[in-house]
């Protein structure tokens, strides 16, 4: 199972940097990220890191509102239309997601799409039934 690190963040100067600083001090590498701002003055920062549990503990120790969230990671080709091909399959599998972000694994060859869904188990089942390959944590976070 793969996880992202979700952080509650006020939209204020320095708050994001405080998070990245804690990660830097703990030797944690960020592979990918998504920052969702709301109109209410706060947002949620989703980070894909090389060591989610370590990141979670480091941040929680510093009093950050942080959670580990299970994600679904899907492989796609790093070519024109690669994302479109994948999304066509995902929509045919009838899976909706709230938030998504990607990262390249091998230039011009492989990339992954991380999706954040309401019901992980249900979505996994649907994707499996549709024959869509889901990646394990090793592939998601990358090799150390």
């Amino acid at each position: 199972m793969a996880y992202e690190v979700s952080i509650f963040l006020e939209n204020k100067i320095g708050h994001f940097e405080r998070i990245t600083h804690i990660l830097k001090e703990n030797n944690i590498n960020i592979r990918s990220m998504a920052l969702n701002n709301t109109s209410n003055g706060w947002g949620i920062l989703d980070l894909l890191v090389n060591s989610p549990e370590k990141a979670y503990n480091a941040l929680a120790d510093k009093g950050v509102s942080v959670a580990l969230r299970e994600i679904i990671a899907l492989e796609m080709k790093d070519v024109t239309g690669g994302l479109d091909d994948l999304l066509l399959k995902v929509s045919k599998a009838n899976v909706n997601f709230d938030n998504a972000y990607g990262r390249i694994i091998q230039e011009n060859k492989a990339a992954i799409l991380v999706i954040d869904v309401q019901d992980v188990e249900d979505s996994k089942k649907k994707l499996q039934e549709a024959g869509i390959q889901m990646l394990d944590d090793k592939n998601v976070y990358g090799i150390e």
Partner: protein
Amino acid sequence: MYWEKNYETLSKNELTDLQIDRFNTTLKYAAQSSFYGNLLQKLGISPGDISDIRQIQDFPFTTKQDLRNNFPYGFLTLPKKELIRLHSSSGTTGNPTVIFHNRHDIDSWANLMARSLYCAGIRETDVFQNICGYGLFTGGLGFQYGIEKLGALSIPAGAGNSLRQIKLMQDYGTTVAHAIPSYLGRLHEVFEMHGLTPQKDTLLRTLVIGAEPHTEEQRKRIEDLFGVKAYNSFGLSEMNGPGVAFECIYQNGLHIWEDAYYVEIVDPDTLQPLPDGEYGELVMTTLNRQAMPLIRYRTRDITRIIPGKCKCGRTHRRIDRITGRTDDMFIIKGCNIFPMQIEGILLKIPEVGSNYLINLETINDVDEMVVSVEVKKEWFKGDIHKLDLLTKQITSMIRDEVLAKPIVKLVEMGSLPQQEGKAVRVLDNRKNGI
């Protein structure tokens, strides 16, 4: 020139005699309530004993807490079948403040209200739009009865829906409107949005503004925006509601109706009476209320008596604008709010911490109450929907409690200043403009 010349222009001696007479009558009623009945016994004072109005200072103060502690009937002097109305504060935390009225009280209140409107130059030929919440809030019905007593055509428009307010003004030729000052900026914006100006497109000539402290600059700005004269209205539900004190056409302080209220200004620390001209807490005694008289009620409002006579010829003294409070109550969107009410709501919500901060801010010309609360770390699961839902839930719970809709801001745990000793819960950054 006067609604009731015989009352409004009484000489000092005549007024004092009337006050003594009315205070003795007030005591007769008060003695029938359990709260004041016990007090009179303790003090050894009987109705009719008062021969010098200064004897009022032998009585202890009555506070909001006394009203709450003796909720609901401890101050009531009459059997329930004689009552015809009650007005009550909002809220579910603790006991509300409730005031009961019999027919005499409602009539007398309506008369004071009509007198107030008359002294601001409003006449039976006017069309009066009351842009104010009806219901338990006294601004709606208080004005309504006064307008009817005066004989003007009343439009009980209620609060909000600016476009409809403008349409009412145009359809029926509104000449006078009553609203809270902070709403009028918003209303003017809507005029502009539709390419209208109050000066050209309405017959509006007078505004009555009250229920919210405001400055002289704010009044001037309202007068300029609407091309009208704006008169300051003062009242509080414990003293009926609106119609306690009102500006006359000279706009130089608010005549406080001394045939209906005995007025003292006291030092908030020593609680000793202060001479005219000095700022202190306004303390009031009802002199013409039967169902629920109050003696030396601490209003918590800070003002002063303006020394000297008014050009209008009324002998009732004038109070100045309210400059502040001696407690932590604040007023926004015309609603009286205590930080404790907000705190009470937040304590019921397990997802947030007990630390909170209320910022009063002017956003797009509208005064807003921004409530910041800390989200508990253990509750955070990274779900944006849940946080949105929580925001909505807190917003509606606070709104139900205080009647004003807040802007709820979720903040990180530990980001609000830690409160030590006397906590600062309210920061007022409102601009003085509207």
